[in-house]
């Protein structure tokens, strides 16, 4: 099952995909209304708790950034100011030279996890969605790197479009990922190439912090991150999970 959260006609609604009479995919809201995709504002598809992100979790991306493998997973956190849903906007500050997307499998916790074991870690997962974890590399500094100014920017964590039930994803370690910028494929990867896979991440994290319902783990991105410019449409896709679209917006739209 796939679930969305959308704003429509003054309210916030749970919604499911629904095939319209035209044959196009629309949405059925929980209250029974049938609406077209473009009629709603897409929100992150669940109530988001702690946002945990991984850096350097794909061997190919580590090579791309000329880093050596970490001893422990490189974990950082993001705040709720960064969240946007499907078809959202993310601001590119004027004058920066390198802002890039990161297509990531987002793992949503559904049951409290504390000292979970790899073998049964997936029992704590409610589902999955696509994440786009933006960074502005011009702002990277070497203190608690990646620092918040580079990563924790408003609109810099796109999540969606749907939360896909864990039961519909037999193996989160067997999914293809790709990103398209204006329709051209710029990033491809496969979740089998994660350095620390999903069960191991849940074991690692829950050994030192309690994971709760709604916490989300952004599991890192493979190689192929390129600069994006104002007006670009960025589409992050994960096999069986969804296609998450985002548009890069200019400072002027934000009164800057």
């Amino acid at each position, binding site marked *: 099952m796939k679930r969305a959260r959308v704003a429509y006609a003054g309210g916030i609604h749970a919604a499911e995909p629904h095939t319209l009479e035209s044959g196009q995919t629309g949405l059925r809201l929980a209250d029974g209304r049938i609406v077209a995709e473009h009629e709603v504002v897409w929100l992150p598809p669940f109530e988001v708790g*702690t946002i945990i992100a991984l850096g350097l979790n794909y061997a190919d991306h580590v090579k791309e950034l000329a880093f050596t493998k970490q001893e422990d997973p490189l974990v950082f956190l993001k705040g709720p100011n960064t969240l946007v849903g499907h078809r959202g906007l993310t601001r590119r500050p004027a004058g920066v030279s390198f802002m890039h997307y990161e297509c990531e499998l987002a793992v949503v916790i559904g049951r409290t996890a504390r000292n979970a074991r790899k073998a049964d870690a997936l029992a704590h997962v409610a589902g999955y969605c696509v994440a786009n974890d933006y960074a502005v590399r011009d702002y990277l500094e070497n203190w*608690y790197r990646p620092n918040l100014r580079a990563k924790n920017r408003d609109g810099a964590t796109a999540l969606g479009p749907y939360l896909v039930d864990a039961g519909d994803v037999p193996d989160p370690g067997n999914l293809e990922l790709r990103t398209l910028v204006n329709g051209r494929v710029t990033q491809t990867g496969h979740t089998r190439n994660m350095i620390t896979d999903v069960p191991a991440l849940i074991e690692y994290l829950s050994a030192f912090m309690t994971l709760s319902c709604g916490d989300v783990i952004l599991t890192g991105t493979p190689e192929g991150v390129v600069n994006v410019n104002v007006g670009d449409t960025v589409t992050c896709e994960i096999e069986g999970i969804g296609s998450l679209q985002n548009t890069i917006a200019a400072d002027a739209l934000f009164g800057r």
Partner: protein
Amino acid sequence: MSVPPYRLSGVVYGTLLNHRSALAAVQEVANQPPYKALPRAPVLYIKPRNTLASHADVVTVPERVEELEVGGCLGVVLGQAACRLSADTALHAVAGYVIVTDISIPHASFYRPSVPLKCRDGFCPIGPRVTERTAVGDPDALGIRVWVDGELKQSANTRDLVRPVAQLLADVTDFMTLSAGDVLAVGTAWPVPRARAGQTVAVEVDGLGRLENRLGGAS
């Protein structure tokens, strides 16, 4: 999380190296690898919801950890959405102030985010209550004292902040929006006092009361 009389959003940011004593402590290594330069933007970190604790809660010292750092901080509670504040008027966005005890497993490197060291369950007591901004006066002239088992271990003052409260709010909200109920802890003085399981730690900030917690052993 509620800290009377406010419902906090549960979002808590901490600030590294924002007390002159803390910045001075890294002065010698700051221009060497891996840092290569002093920080330009405020260096922030997140204390996630699993870390939140209240006055009088017991904070668990993890296994195989001897001591914890007990960082006494002034916490700024936002009263409204705050984006691109100007330092002149930034304090208008503040609802009040609260004590934050920022607890960490001691660490010498600030190169990578210290999530496993700063984000253990219960590592961010906040309380005992939020005091309204108008009752506090100048947030850049508040004494902060850290006590361990009744012994005064640190006496600091917010007048020694690298970025005073309003300037910090301006610089932070230039790149991220804060919301009503978010807490920004403005930084600890150096060296940060340490305490062990079985000890009671208390942080006092002038006008904000006293936030006390006992450290317990892992069961």
